[in-house]
């Protein structure tokens, strides 16, 4: 423009009309309908005879719940009918331009899961408390890894190196705890190891502007090679001194652990699991309720704007990526100090990538990512339990589930997932 209009603009006196766009999305209803049909085909079409049992009681409960036994076919019919009714409600709501509420979707998912369990457990009994205890155990490293991933990506650095951070944490904690016989020192060492991996990631991504995904992938290879080399060369020569860390004991929280069904899973665990509760809350609170979190997110969304208001982008990224590494490394310690009790080659076995999937499935939100990690942990423990009681579903398909779900999530079929805007992009200060 060459000339500027200098006439005063008269304020518009007409009343402001708020235009509300009426959005009607059929996506939820369609998805529910598809799952209802699938459920009907599986539960009734391939229906199984017999009764399905659920053992609800465990030792030391306040009161012992009786085992639950339902007729497999009868339960299947009832569940499919309820699923169809819920789908109908969703269709009605969509017709009236209202969104299907979350509670309805959750109820639907729960019933579908219950139906599947009933179907799978025909003629057998599923130990529900045991299922939940194992599921939480398998989720712990995933949750820590996912929290690390959320922090790192929220500040604008794609963290594909979660696997490497977990593995480094597992290795270091095993060695340090084994030498000192102090599991807590092992935890600290695991965090340091995670930070070291993060330092490399941050240095290459922020200082040398190398593509972050490349650094992450290469770091995973580096840590795998390094830990495997040291394991074969040093640890296996002297496993007594270097690779027999003391494990954390399970701690009963007096009253809470006696709650039926969920008590043992939530409150009869090692201290690392209790740290999960703290970590998830702290990360969520700090990310969304503190100045630090606001700065962190602004750097991840729009580094230029953050820079303009005086935030040091490179420094913020560097230290928060390091913090993310500490959290992920802490999770790695669970492999050696919490569950297995010794380090082994490539013992994380892709947990870092499942954590990455949880980050995306959880839409870069700590709470949702935790729920996603719990879901993935539940799926893989369900596979364990079903293979013990003799499941009709091949275990490979249960193991595949988290990955397939993530592909659907990324492809936008399960809600929109949007990454932090500047995630993966180096910031070059002009």
């Amino acid at each position, binding site marked *: 423009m060459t000339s500027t209009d200098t006439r005063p603009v008269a304020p518009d006196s007409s009343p402001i009309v708020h235009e509300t766009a009426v959005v009607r999305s059929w996506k939820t209803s369609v998805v529910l309908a598809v799952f209802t049909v699938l459920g009907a085909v599986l539960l009734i079409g391939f229906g199984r005879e017999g009764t399905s049992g659920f053992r609800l009681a465990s030792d030391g409960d306040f009161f012992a719940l009786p085992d639950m036994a339902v007729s497999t076919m009868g339960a299947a019919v009832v569940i499919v009918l309820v699923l169809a009714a819920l789908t109908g409600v969703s269709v009605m709501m969509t017709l009236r331009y209202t969104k299907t509420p979350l509670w309805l979707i959750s109820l639907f998912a729960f019933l579908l899961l219950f139906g599947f369990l009933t179907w799978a457990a025909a003629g057998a009994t599923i130990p529900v408390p045991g299922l939940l205890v194992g599921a939480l155990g398998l989720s712990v490293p995933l949750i820590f890894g996912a929290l690390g991933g959320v922090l790192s990506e929220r500040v604008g650095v794609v963290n*594909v190196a979660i696997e490497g951070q977990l593995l480094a944490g597992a290795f270091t904690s095993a060695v340090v705890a084994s030498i000192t016989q102090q599991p807590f020192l092992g935890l600290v060492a695991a965090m340091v190891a995670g930070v070291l991996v993060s330092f*490399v990631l941050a240095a*290459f991504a922020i200082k*040398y*502007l*190398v*593509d972050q*995904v*490349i*650094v992450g*992938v*290469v*770091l995973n*290879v*580096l840590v*795998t*090679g*390094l830990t*495997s*080399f*040291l394991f*074969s*060369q*040093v640890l296996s*020569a002297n496993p007594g001194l270097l690779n027999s860390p003391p494990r954390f004991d399970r701690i009963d929280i007096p009253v809470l652990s006696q709650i039926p069904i969920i008590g043992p899973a939530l409150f009869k665990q090692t201290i690392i699991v209790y740290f999960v509760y703290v970590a998830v809350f702290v990360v969520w609170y700090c990310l969304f309720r503190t100045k630090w979190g606001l700065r962190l997110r602004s750097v991840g969304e729009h580094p230029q704007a953050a820079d303009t208001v005086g935030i040091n982008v490179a420094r913020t990224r560097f230290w928060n990526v390091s913090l993310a590494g500490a959290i992920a490394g802490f999770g790695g310690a669970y492999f050696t100090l919490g569950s297995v009790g010794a380090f082994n080659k490539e013992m994380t076995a*892709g947990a870092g*990538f499942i954590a*990455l*999937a949880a980050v*995306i499935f959880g839409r870069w939100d700590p709470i949702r990512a935790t729920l996603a990690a719990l879901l993935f942990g539940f799926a893989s423990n369900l596979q364990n339990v079903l293979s013990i009681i003799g499941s009709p579903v*091949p275990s*490979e*398909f249960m*193991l*595949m589930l988290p*990955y*397939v779900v*993530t*592909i659907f999530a*990324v*492809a*936008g*079929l399960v809600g*929109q*997932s*949007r*990454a932090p*805007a500047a*995630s*993966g992009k*180096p910031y*070059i200060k002009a």
Partner: protein
Amino acid sequence: MSDKPEQLPVVTAEAKLADAGTAPTPDEPKSTRILREITTGSAAISVLAVVLALVIGGILIAVTDARVQATAGYFFSRPTDLLQAIGDSVGGAYSALFQGAIYNFRRPGFADGIKPLTETLTFATPLIAAGLGVALAFRVGLFNIGGRGQMLVAAAASGWVAFSFDLPFFIHMIVALIAGLVAGAVWGGVVGLLKARTGAHEVIVTIMLNYVAFYLISFLLRTPGALQAPGSNNPKTPGMKDTAVFPDLLGSGYNLHAGFIFAIAATVFVWYLLNRSSLGFKFRAVGENPNAARVAGINVNRIWITAMAMSGALIGLAGVSQVLGTVTTGFSSGIDAGIGFDAITVALLGRSRPVGVFIAGVLFGAFKAGGFSMQAAQGVPVDIVLVVQSLIVLFIAAPPLVRAVFRLPTPGVRKAPRAKKAVA
């Protein structure tokens, strides 16, 4: 990840600066210019990165060696012992690596002595093919980490054709080869399709598809009537029929098979595709800037799908060469042998140029071949090769780091007489 398609710049901003910086300036003497180009060019960086990685690998070997640790205890009374021990451990390991990869001096005669080199080329075959696949995707701005999955489905499809059909010699081989390439192309093409249609980030989708393929193949391998060998309980296929197996190139005494010819052909094909064909031009245009390419009338979505399918097919060739060439007695779910991930490092080391990938593939093939003999001869775990490989890639990705370590001048910044400070 984001709903807007985005591009992953494979060449870092720094590397681009370096490329721009090497343009000759007229007022510079020719001799210094050549020297500067040699010391700051990307080839020099690659060589120095390999040297640096080998040095760090040597330090690791020395530090973890038992005799080195023992002699370090009395370093100040007899320092030569420590140096001797270091020399023995590192020199022994690297000489075993060399003799396992290039030429074995302990064997009589040239025919036996050169055998390690043919082993290197055998190991290099799938690395070159898969590296080309990853490099092709890189040039289109796509990051294909799905090598493992694409290799597995390709190996399964090709292997299934090879052991369950009865076809005449050569035709059988070609049919099995094509089956593998198509399977790889489909597994890769799905990623391109998802990215084009929904904006799903290819990194995530390929990682996830790796696991899906792994569990799918594991399931098929233990299901009688699918891939499992009849009458067996092991998750393993029957052996490939002789009519489908790649013929040996140098006779039965060597493992080198016709897959290497296919790898060379693939290198020439990718070179022609990228540098001489109009499709390759579109590929590179989309890789440089998808928005500009779209404005120029290129159908970016179709290019993404095509490129991922071709990338998957090339990686599929690696899977095919594994089952029809290297391991012909039947395969299990570990047939990919980590090549899908190694291919990424090969493509990065080769800077996504077909010839560069070929050379990088041979180098990493040498590391693999030598690594196993190093483990056998010197007891140094083969995992050190992983460390060295990943360090090479890290260093190559960050030229300023290598330049800082070797105190090389930064390209484009000559130590010319400094221009006088501009008057403020």
